[in-house]
């Protein structure tokens, strides 16, 4: 098997006696985009910072193309990190920002500027060469920051929620645009986000991280449909958790109006419609269950009204026993 581009082995990070990362094992293959997704405070940013060399690792190691970089200084790691804020240097123009990394590599000025302009063209910012960052919009700043990272030809780019300060529409389009660029360049990337839709859209594989540990890694749809732990089920997948053990994913459910159509071998729950809305041409219902004190959001065909009593049913075989899997 080919050596992974990035491999974290039993990675542990403590910050003043608190375990932030708990024996993380994670491999990212060449040209692969992996998304670490998890609730805020789960340690995903710390994971990126540990890989970039910004926090000391207390145990385990970080390998980059098989080379142990656990103790390498951050500036010596061929890894670049992008943040929520673009962090463009405010005292430099766009072109100076972009060529900053090249200058550190002692590349002559002419060559630097040539590459910089090329990169500016690629990120569609060629007109902004001599503009200072404060004059750019949030999305433009992130594109320049992306160019600034890309131009140093890192082996790995780390993204720490790079779109979270942008508005939702721009977020999607910039995300897809960046993914396209990464794929074009054949770049390996590790994203971190708390937005699972974004994770599903951007990544080849997702890793679900809860409380400093990775609970499941796999292609996004797999993980969504077949969660292997309560944590993954609750955070990443969508469905109903019973007794903190049995899980039914949302796509197994159907909504019906009367119980007479109930069949054998089906689980049935009673509830009422709390709200409904359309998204992308599909009708969604917000259903509050009477018994389980749970809420579900399900797509539906029939037209119910808010306040209607409904039943939701799922085939018995759709129930997964998460404890058994473990």
């Amino acid at each position: 098997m080919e050596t992974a581009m990035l491999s974290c082995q039993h990675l542990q990070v403590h910050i003043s006696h608190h375990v932030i990362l708990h024996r993380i094992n994670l491999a990212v293959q060449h040209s692969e985009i992996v998304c670490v997704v998890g609730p805020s405070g789960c340690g995903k940013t710390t994971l990126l910072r540990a890989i970039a060399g910004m926090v000391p690792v207390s145990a385990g190691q970080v390998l980059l193309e098989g080379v142990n970089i656990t103790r390498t200084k951050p500036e010596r790691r061929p890894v670049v990190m992008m943040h929520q804020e673009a962090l463009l240097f405010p005292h430099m123009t766009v072109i100076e920002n972009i060529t900053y990394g090249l200058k550190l590599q002692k590349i002559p000025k002419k060559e630097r500027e040539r590459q910089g302009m090329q990169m500016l063209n690629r990120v569609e910012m060629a007109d902004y060469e001599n503009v200072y960052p404060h004059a750019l919009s949030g999305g433009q700043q992130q594109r320049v920051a992306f160019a600034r990272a890309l131009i140093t030809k890192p082996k790995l780019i780390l993204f720490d929620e790079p779109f979270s300060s942008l508005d939702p529409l721009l977020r999607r389009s910039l995300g897809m645009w960046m993914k396209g660029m990464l794929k074009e360049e054949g770049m390996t990337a590790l994203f971190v986000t708390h937005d699972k839709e974004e994770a599903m859209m951007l990544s080849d594989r997702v890793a679900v991280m809860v409380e400093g540990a990775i609970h499941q890694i796999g292609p996004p749809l797999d993980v969504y449909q077949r969660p292997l732990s309560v944590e993954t089920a609750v955070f990443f997948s969508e469905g109903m958790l019973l007794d903190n053990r049995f899980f039914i994913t949302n796509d197994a459910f159907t909504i019906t109006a009367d119980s007479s159509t109930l069949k054998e071998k089906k689980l049935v729950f009673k509830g009422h419609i709390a709200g409904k809305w359309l998204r992308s041409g599909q009708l969604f219902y917000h259903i509050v269950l009477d018994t389980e004190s749970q809420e579900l959001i399900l797509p539906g065909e029939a037209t119910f009204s808010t306040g209607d009593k409904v039943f939701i049913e799922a085939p018995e075989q759709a129930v997964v026993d998460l404890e058994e899997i473990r």
Partner: protein
Amino acid sequence: MKSFIRRTMKITVLTLIVVGLLAPFLILGMSSFAHEWRWPQLLPASFSLRAWTVVFQDSQLWEALFVTAVIGMLVIVLNFLLGLPAGRALAYEEFKGKSLIETLLLLPILVPSLAIGMGLLFTAIRLGMADHWIGVVLIHLVPTLPYTIRILRAGYENIGWKYEEAARNLGASPFTVFKTVTFPLLFPSIRAVAALSFVISISQYVLTALIGGGQVITLAMIYYPYVSGADRPVTAAFSLLFIVLTIALLLMFESLFLRSRKKV
């Protein structure tokens, strides 16, 4: 019509500001040349060069100017050497005793310098630094460094550590980060520190007198005794000399910075 009123008001306000800023200097300048300037005369009855003759005939003036400038500049340098790491640590790091250090750093500002000076003179004598310019430079850190650290700390907090992190990420060593990112972003604070510590240093009389033992003659040593006299023109002339010295230093500092910026 409206824009005319607005423009007139703008000009009036600007003029007032400029006059407000320049008036003290003008008055100082006029006082230094005044001969018989008695209330309620608006302008001196006659002018004389006497005050300036007194100032420039002082046998120790040139030496004092030189010593003052050198000590002031060394004080600036030491303030940076100590203040930059300290301000950074206080801004970005959490450590035990941080709030204690913050409180202690206020003390030299609050406690009269004489109280500290006596104790430090004792230490300086023991260390053999009394009556020597090195001791004077070090003692000037007492009234300057607390301000320096506070200013730089605020400066660092303003920038935030993320730019430094971003730069390191792109391959810059800590020193390069400082040179290319921190220093330019921190420059307003750095300029404030340079000006403030220089002004504080050159105006120290008590500490300079105690530790320098009178052997180290700065401008303040010559100037302060005159303040307690009734000779207004001489006092005014010395005050102007102080101002000129400070402005000269700041201009030098500014040009150094501009030159270093051009290289970036």
